[in-house]
């Protein structure tokens, strides 16, 4: 219990840390709430005074003065209360904005291995609804809690000044109130965590199934998926219902305890009033205090409520933030204008993950090669031999475990990641489209790239033809999943992009493979020109692509088997030769296959 409490406090302190940039404003809000907390308890005191001095005695002359004082207190409390409520929201939203951007940036910064493992739905929940839960604490939470605490102090002060016996009677009930609140806190906390988990599961399922609805429908899986959804939905409901149960028990309990206090005040107060030790006005003031007294406690536990859910959300957010798997950015090196483009892999070992026994599951095993400036290199090998990995490593999507990767003689880990990727142009086999115009999808919001550059690039590969036919042409809105564009058209877009970005090193991942012969021809032509003067690394299993290469890297089970030109390799009679013959012979075989 105590360990958990310590953790809570640490977590809370960390959440409050986000308010530090606004500490002056928080201080101001704090002053406001101090005044408001004083004005509330002042009212029963004034009413008690009015009853004792004027109403009981029947001297109504001075009553108006007290009434004016009451009115002033109410008006002031209202105005300051409003200002305070808006103000705390304002502070909170500033802080929330900071947290949200921080989480987003953190997530975005993570290396790809993080994204390989984490479902997007979960990350969306972190940046949206978990942050939202935190907002309740940051906006009202801290100041409101302090305000309530002050209110308690003020009420206690007023009570003791009026009658210490009744004050003690009222305070005697306090421990019960605290106990109930503590019990509630203990039970609800774990429940909130469970609820959030279920909400995330529900969101993940929704996200994935809405995205993959086509597959669900095509495969007629509606019924089965419905059942799975119902199960997840049911788990979610069960978690929620447990929370409801604790709430159902807690709120009445608080009311009952408050009533016990009132009952005892009447009893003790009445008995002492009979001897003249207490006036009716004070008794009435105490009945009001009794209600006022429990309101902040109730609010506080209510705040505990939001605090609970916020803590659960915060824990998840901090889990993400603390688990930084982004690549270390040293970036000490002053970047040159452009890369010359010499690429060296030195004894590179790499694993995406560890095996169950903890040893790395090597994907690349000591790969070494050199691509000189301006050379066009092709990587060949069977599927899964590590071709794509080499590209990902050159782009520094992942960090290698052993060895070095050098561009122009400099380790890529010593360069600014942004600069490195900026100078390397990548064409991916899986073409992703953002919602927005064709223009946006090509330029990716890079203000340095003009529409003219894009049109020129499109023309140079003959892709302007199909874009011109779209309604709105370059401003044609691509639907979220790019439904209105075919795979080939999308690949053309990524080629236009790579041309517009004008990189020093060009990297292609099986990109030409799914384009029809016509388009491929178009791109082949454009590529030839683009490749001129640029170092390039192309993953392909098409002979047409690799035959033009200056050097061919033959990968086999994560190791570089051979390197050389087509002729050299064929003459060497090694693995490449076999691979080549196999592909060549198979193609021949199909051509001659009997109908």
């Amino acid at each position: 219990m105590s360990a958990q409490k310590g953790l809570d406090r640490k977590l809370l302190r960390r959440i409050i840390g986000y308010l530090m940039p606004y500490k002056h404003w928080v201080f101001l809000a704090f002053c406001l709430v101090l005044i408001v907390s004083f004005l509330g308890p002042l009212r029963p005191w004034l009413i008690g005074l009015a009853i004792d001095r004027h109403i009981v005695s029947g001297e109504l002359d001075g009553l108006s003065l007290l009434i004016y004082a009451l009115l002033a207190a109410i008006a002031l409390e209202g105005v300051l209360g409003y200002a305070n409520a808006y103000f705390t929201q304002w502070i909170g939203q500033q802080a929330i904005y900071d947290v949200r951007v921080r989480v987003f940036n953190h997530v975005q910064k993570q290396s790809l291995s993080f994204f390989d493992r984490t479902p997007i739905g979960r990350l969306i929940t972190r940046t949206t609804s978990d942050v939202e839960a935190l907002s309740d604490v940051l906006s009202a939470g801290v100041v409101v809690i302090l305000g309530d605490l002050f209110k308690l102090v003020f009420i206690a002060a007023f009570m003791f000044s009026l009658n210490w016996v009744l004050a003690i009677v009222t305070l005697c009930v306090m421990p019960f109130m605290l106990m109930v609140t503590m019990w509630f806190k203990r039970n609800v906390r774990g429940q909130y965590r469970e609820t959030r988990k279920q909400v995330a599961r529900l969101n993940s399922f929704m996200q994935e199934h809405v995205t993959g609805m086509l597959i669900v429908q095509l495969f007629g899986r509606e019924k089965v998926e419905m059942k799975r959804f119902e199960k997840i939905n049911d788990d979610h409901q069960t978690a929620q219902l447990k929370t409801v149960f604790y709430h159902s028990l807690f709120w009445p309990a608080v009311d009952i305890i408050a009533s016990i206090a009132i009952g005892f005040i009447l009893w003790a107060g009445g008995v002492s009033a009979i001897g003249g030790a207490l006036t009716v006005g004070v008794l009435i003031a105490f009945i009001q205090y009794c209600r006022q007294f429990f309101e902040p406690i109730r609010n506080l536990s209510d705040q505990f409520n939001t605090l609970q859910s916020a803590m659960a959300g915060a824990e998840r957010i901090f889990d993400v933030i603390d688990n930084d798997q982004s690549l270390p950015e040293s970036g000490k090196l002053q970047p040159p204008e452009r890369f010359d483009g010499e690429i060296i892999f030195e004894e590179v070992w790499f694993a995406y993950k560890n095996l169950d026994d903890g040893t790395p599951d090597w994907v690349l095993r000591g790969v070494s090669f050199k691509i000189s400036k301006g050379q066009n290199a092709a990587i060949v090998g069977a599927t899964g031999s590590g071709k794509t990995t080499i590209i990902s490593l050159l782009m520094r999507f992942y960090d290698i475990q052993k060895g070095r990767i050098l561009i122009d003689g400099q380790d890529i880990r010593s360069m600014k990641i942004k600069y490195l990727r900026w100078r390397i142009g990548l064409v991916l086999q899986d073409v992703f489209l953002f919602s927005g115009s064709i223009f946006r999808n090509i330029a990716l919001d890079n203000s340095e790239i003009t529409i003219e550059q894009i049109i020129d690039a499109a023309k140079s590969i003959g892709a302007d033809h199909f874009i011109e036919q779209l309604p709105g042409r370059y401003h044609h809105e691509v639907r979220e999943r790019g439904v209105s564009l075919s795979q080939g058209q999308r690949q053309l877009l990524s080629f236009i992009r790579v041309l517009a970005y004008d990189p020093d090193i060009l990297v292609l991942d099986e990109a030409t493979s799914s384009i029809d012969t016509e388009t491929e021809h178009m791109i082949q032509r454009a590529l030839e020109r683009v490749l001129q003067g640029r170092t390039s690394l192309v993953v392909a299993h098409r002979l047409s692509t690799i035959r033009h290469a200056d050097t061919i890297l033959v990968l086999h089970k994560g190791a570089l088997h051979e390197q050389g030109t087509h002729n050299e390799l064929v003459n060497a009679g090694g693995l490449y030769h076999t691979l080549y013959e196999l592909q060549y012979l198979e193609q021949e075989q199909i051509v001659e296959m009997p109908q």
Partner: protein
Amino acid sequence: MQSLTRLNHYFIRYWRLYVPGLIFTIISAIFAIAVPVVVRQAIDSIPRFATLYSQFEATALQHSLYWNFFWTLLIFALIIIGLSLASGLFTFLMRQTVVVASRHIEFDLRNTLYEHLQKLSTRFYNHIKTGDVITRATSDIEQVRRYIGPAIMYSTRALVIVIASITAMLIISPTLTLYALMPLSLLAAAIFIVAQLVHKRSEALQRQYAQLTSRVQETLAGIRLVKAYAREETETQAFENESRIYKLRMLGLARVEAAWRPVFLIVVGLSEVMVVWVGGRLVAEGLITIGNIAEYIIYVALMTWPVAAFGLVISMMQRASASAERIYEILDHVPDISDDDRSNHSIMKINGHVRFERVSFRYEDDLPLALQNITFTLPAGQSLAIVGRTGSGKTTLIDLLSRLYEPSEGRIIIDGKDIKTLPLSVLREAVGYVPQDVFLFSDSIGNNIAFGTVGASKEDIHQSAHEAELLETVLEFPLGLNSEVGERGVSLSGGQAQRTTIARALIRKPRILVLDDALSSVDTKTENRILEHLRKRQGHHTMILISHRISSIKGADQIIVLDQGQIAEQGTHLSLMKLDGLYAQMYQRQLLKERLESFN
């Protein structure tokens, strides 16, 4: 608010919870309202006893009078405690019925929404952002639940307490009641104005929330691209911008919501002042007692929360109605492709004879025809290959066959029956479709394959994985077929993921197998082995194949060359070669390349 009335049938469904719930609410409110009456009697008894006590000053009776009073007050106290215990018990029961019912309704509503989403066609999904759908299915439903549960609970309880309190007050003094309630009447107008504003602003807030969510979703889905082009900063800027707008919307809402509490405070405070001021005079005139003032103060205090709850409830209902509107926007969207009275449910099986009759299609009314006048016949068991340039309509054609869209003109006939008369489930059951876009669920490879058919056995999974040339590769993974794939199948290579989708289609043993450029990421060697497996099945299924490799197309019984949405050429490999048109050109070019490659 109209959208909320549409939820009424849910209340009826759970009347077994709601009816007792409402009864519990009323009972608990009545017990709560009885407390002030007891308090008044206790207070009023004090002066009486005090007078009596002083009259018997210094007599033996005074002592017993003291104890008499002592016990009387204790009984009052115990009654108060007893009443609140009873009230508390029923409050507990109220929450356990009404709030539980609301959770049930939330559950039902979510299921209904998801079920409906499954029925909506591709055309719907082309028009709506994924993030938007998710927001509706999550936070909008939560808003609606707050109306169905807490809002109903609070408002009922509030109504009962307000009515009961006012009645009790009127019995004591109509004048004082009038003055005490005067400020409260102002509240109605204030609530209305604030609520209107809250409604408008919360709607804007929700919209922005959806916008924010889809922004994150998109960036994360395209993270590879974002990183490759070092666009993190622009993405951050865009996200910051959305967050900033969200913050402004939130503060706009806060400006009006901050008014709730002060409005109530001032109104209730004024009521209290009235009670003391006017009540003081009435006490002086001897019309009411001091105890009545205490009683009135408690009534006003008792009404504070219910009246405040009215405000909250209205704000909840405002939000809920906005959310319900968004949910119903989806639920009201009639699936444009579904079984209807034309469907002939006696059809249980499809043989696989496919015929297109003068089929034309356009995606939108303002877009040009994507397919124009397509006619062909594909006998059951035969294979058809479709070739053509990018954007010539190949994928559209097979999307029509799976009935993802309806043809704008013409008919598609399967086994001699119009496709519209086939039950959708029978049609889709018969088609094994491997789409161009690889989509896998974040589940194990085995489960992704088994997704193709209900109740697939381990052998089935192995068999189809083998036919898709996936088995060997996967068995090399430490967990074999149990290896998990990332959300978009990231830990698999492009070719492996593609072969998984092929296995997923093959496990269905489909009558019609459709491969939409499904071998593009697979190397030639593997491709040939897969085609070999498929050839073994020849005659068992009709096959439609889109490919750019002549090598895989050549063997087809029939080849269609599409050009700008029209059939340019049609025939077998031999007849098309003889025709010496587009196909022959394509073939020549590939052959030339292959020759070039093979010689040097």
